[in-house]
C-alpha cells in the first residue's frame, strides 16, 4: 500500500512539476503494453441475429490478415467488416471455425499488418497484471481505438458454464481474472500480459454452473495455438454437425459398465445414492456398497442420477475412474476399473 502511495504520489508530482517536453512521464505499464500490441486489435461488425450481438473484437495473428476471434453468430453473417487500428475498414471472410473452443479464424486481404504473437499463458502467475482490449458496447466509434481494462490473474481452472440457459461445451482450461469483460462485444479480444504479449483471448459471455454468475475469463493461448495449427478440415457449412464428444462415442464399440443402480424417487432426480451394486461387477470389486452417495467421479461433481448417466457415458472400458463417495459420516475414495458390456 505504502509503496503504491509513495510511487504514485512522487511520480504524479514529478510529472506535474517537471518542466520540458515530457508531460506524461509517469509510469504507465498499460500504456506501454498498448503501444506494443494495441495496433493488432480489430473491431468486427456483422448482422445481428436474435439476441446475438452483431459486433465483437478480434486480433491479427499474421501480417497477411489472419484474425482470431470468438465464434459468435456474427461470424455466420455474410458481411463481416473488420475495422483495423489504423481506421481501415476491410471485408473479412471466415477461414475456419472450432465449435468446441468457440473460435474462428477470419481473413482480410492486406499486407504488412501489425500482429500479435501468442505467448504461452504459463508465463504469467496468479496476481500478475493482465490487460484486456475490446469493442465493448460499440463504444469505440469510427476510427476510435478499442477500450482497455486491467486486472490481475485470479485463477486457472476448467470451465463449467452455461450460456443463455444452454450448456456450453468447452470444458477445457481458462484464465479467470478480476476485470469485467462479460459484456457485449468484448469476446474475441486479446488478453495481454504487462509487457503487451498475448496470452489468451477473452471468451464469450457465460454463466458459471458453480455460481450462476457471469465469468470473466480468457481462453489460454495454448488453445488458440492448437486451433491455428490444426488441419483446415472443418468449414463453415459443417459447423452444425455433431460435436466432438458425441462423435467419439459413436466410434467406441463397447459400452462402459460399472454395475451400480442409482435410486430414483418418482419424477425427481434426487442425489445419486447407490441403491444396488451387482455382485461381481467392477463397482462391487472396488468396494462400493448400497446406500453410498456418489459425490464425484474423476473430479466431476455428480448431483443426481442424470449426472451419473452422463458421466458414465464419457468413460471407456478398461479405464480407471476415481469415485468419491459419502458413506455414513465418512468421505471415501475408491478407484473403479470400468468394465464393458
Amino acid at each position: 500500500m505504502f509503496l503504491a502511495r509513495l510511487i504514485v504520489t512522487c511520480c504524479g508530482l514529478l510529472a506535474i512539476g517537471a518542466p520540458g517536453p515530457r508531460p506524461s512521464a509517469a509510469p504507465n505499464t498499460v500504456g506501454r503494453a498498448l503501444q506494443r500490441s494495441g495496433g493488432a486489435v480489430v473491431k468486427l461488425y456483422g448482422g445481428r441475429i436474435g439476441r446475438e450481438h452483431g459486433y465483437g473484437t478480434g486480433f491479427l495473428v499474421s501480417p497477411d490478415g489472419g484474425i482470431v476471434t470468438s465464434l459468435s453468430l456474427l461470424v455466420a453473417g455474410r458481411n463481416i467488416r473488420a475495422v483495423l487500428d489504423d481506421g481501415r475498414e476491410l471485408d473479412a471472410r471466415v477461414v475456419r471455425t472450432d465449435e468446441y473452443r468457440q473460435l474462428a479464424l477470419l481473413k482480410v486481404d492486406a499486407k504488412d499488418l501489425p500482429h500479435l504473437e501468442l505467448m504461452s499463458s504459463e508465463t504469467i502467475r496468479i496476481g500478475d497484471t493482465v490487460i484486456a482490449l475490446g469493442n465493448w458496447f460499440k463504444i469505440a466509434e469510427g476510427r476510435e481505438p478499442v477500450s482497455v481494462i486491467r486486472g490481475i490473474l485470479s485463477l486457472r481452472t476448467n470451465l463449467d458454464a452455461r450460456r443463455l440457459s444452454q450448456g456450453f461445451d468447452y470444458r477445457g482450461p481458462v484464465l479467470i481474472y478480476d476485470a469485467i469483460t462479460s459484456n457485449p462485444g468484448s469476446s474475441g479480444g486479446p488478453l495481454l500480459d504487462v509487457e503487451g504479449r498475448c496470452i489468451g483471448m477473452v471468451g464469450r459471455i457465460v454463466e458459471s454452473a458453480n455460481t450462476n454468475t457471469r465469468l470473466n475469463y480468457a481462453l489460454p493461448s495454448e488453445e488458440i495455438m492448437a486451433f491455428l495449427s490444426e488441419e483446415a478440415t472443418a468449414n463453415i457449412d459443417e459447423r452444425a454437425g455433431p460435436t466432438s464428444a458425441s462423435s467419439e462415442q459413436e466410434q467406441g464399440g463397447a459400452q462402459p459398465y460399472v454395475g451400480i443402480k442409482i435410486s430414483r424417487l418418482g419424477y425427481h432426480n434426487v442425489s445419486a445414492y447407490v441403491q444396488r451394486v451387482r455382485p461381481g461387477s467392477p463397482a462391487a470389486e472396488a468396494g462400493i456398497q448400497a446406500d453410498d452417495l456418489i459425490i464425484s467421479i474423476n473430479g466431476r461433481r455428480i448431483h443426481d442420477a442424470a449426472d451419473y448417466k452422463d458421466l458414465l457415458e464419457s468413460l471407456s472400458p478398461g479405464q480407471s475412474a476415481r469415485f468419491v463417495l459419502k458413506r455414513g459420516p465418512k468421505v471415501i475414495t475408491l478407484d473403479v476399473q470400468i468394465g464393458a458390456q
Partner: protein
Amino acid sequence: MARSGATFVTFPWRRFPTGVCFRATCVLAALTVFSSSSAQAADPVDPYPFEAARAQVIRTALARIGPSIVMIETVGGEQPLAEAGRGGPRAAAFRVGEGPTTGLVVSSDGLILTSSFNFVRSPTIIMVTLADDRRFVARLLGRDYIRRLALLKIDASGLPAPTWVEDGELRIGQYAITCGRGLGGSTASVSLGIISALNRRNGNAVQTDAKVSPVNYGGPLIDIEGRVIGVLVPMAGAGDELAGAQWYDSGIGFAIYKHKIDFVFDRLVAGEAIEQGKIGVILEPDEPSEIPLLEKLLPTTRGVRIKAVAENSPASRAELRKGDKILALDGQPTGDLPEILRQLSDRAAGEEITLSIKRRWRRFDVTLRLETASEIGKAVEKE
C-alpha cells in the same frame, strides 16, 4: 527487464507504525515538490519492478491465507423460490449455483466460518475439503441471518487458523484482496481492490471494491500480509436470504468485522439461529403539523411515533401504546423513521434494548426483549 518473480522489493517501512509511515510519505511528497524544479527530476520511473513486486505481494499473502481457506460442497436441497408459482418482478431474481462455496477455518479444532448464503438450499449433507485435500462431512451449527454468517464444525484438529487484522488498523484506500473457492480449481481465486469504506451496514461491515460474489461468499477479505480483515457476505438490501447477491462484482462488496463475528460467535457455536429482532409495533414519522403550537416551539421532541402495537408482543408487554414517541434507542437519539429502522436492523431476537419514550408530558425508559417476526405474528408482518 524485471519480470514477475525476478525481483522482490521488500517493504522495510512496514515495520513502522502506520502514522510514521504516512508522515514519511508526506515528507517525501513535499520534498519532491521542492526538488522537482531541479534537473534530477526527469527520469521516468520504471513501472515493471512495481508491477512485479505487487504481484509477488499478492502471491505471498495468498500463500499465507491459503491453508485456512476451505471448499464447501453441499448435497440435496432445492433452488429457493421467492414467490412459489408466481412470476414477474417478485420472483427470485437470483438463482443459486451448484457450488462449491467457500469457508474459513477459525479454530484449530474444526470450526469453520462461512456465509449463510451458501446454505439457502437447506442441504442435507455438507462436505468440507481442506486446502490439503482432506475431506470431512460437516455439521451446520448456527446461522446469523443478520450478518449472513454460518458456522460449521468438522471433526479435525490442528487446523491452520488465520491471523486477523485488528479492526482499528484498517484504513480507507489500503489494498484488500478477496479469496474464494467457488470456481473449483486447486487454489483459491483472488481479486485485488481497496477498502472503500469502514463501518458500513450499521457498523457490521467493511466495504471493498475487490470482486465479491458467490465465488467467494464465506471466504476472507485479506490485507497484503495475508491477515483476515473480515468474512465476505452478501450484505446489500434486507429481508430475502438471497438479497445482495444481485450486487455481485459491482465494486461494492462487504466483509463482516472480526468484533462483530466475536459478538455472535458463542451463539453460533451453541447452534442458535440469529434472526432480526422485532418490537411489535408499526411506526410512523412524526408529523410536526399535528403537534400543538407550544410543543412545536420546544426542541428535542423529535422522534417517531407508534401507530399500532401488536398483541402479545414485546411492545404490548412493555405497555407501549399508540401515540407514544420513541426518542432514543439504548441512549442514542433515534432521529427519523429510516434512522431508527437502521439502528434496529442488526438487533437480534433475544437481545434486550432500552427505549426512551415520551407519552404526552411524561418521559420514561422501557427495556424489552426482542422477538422474531414469526413469534409476534401478523401485525408485525405488515410493518
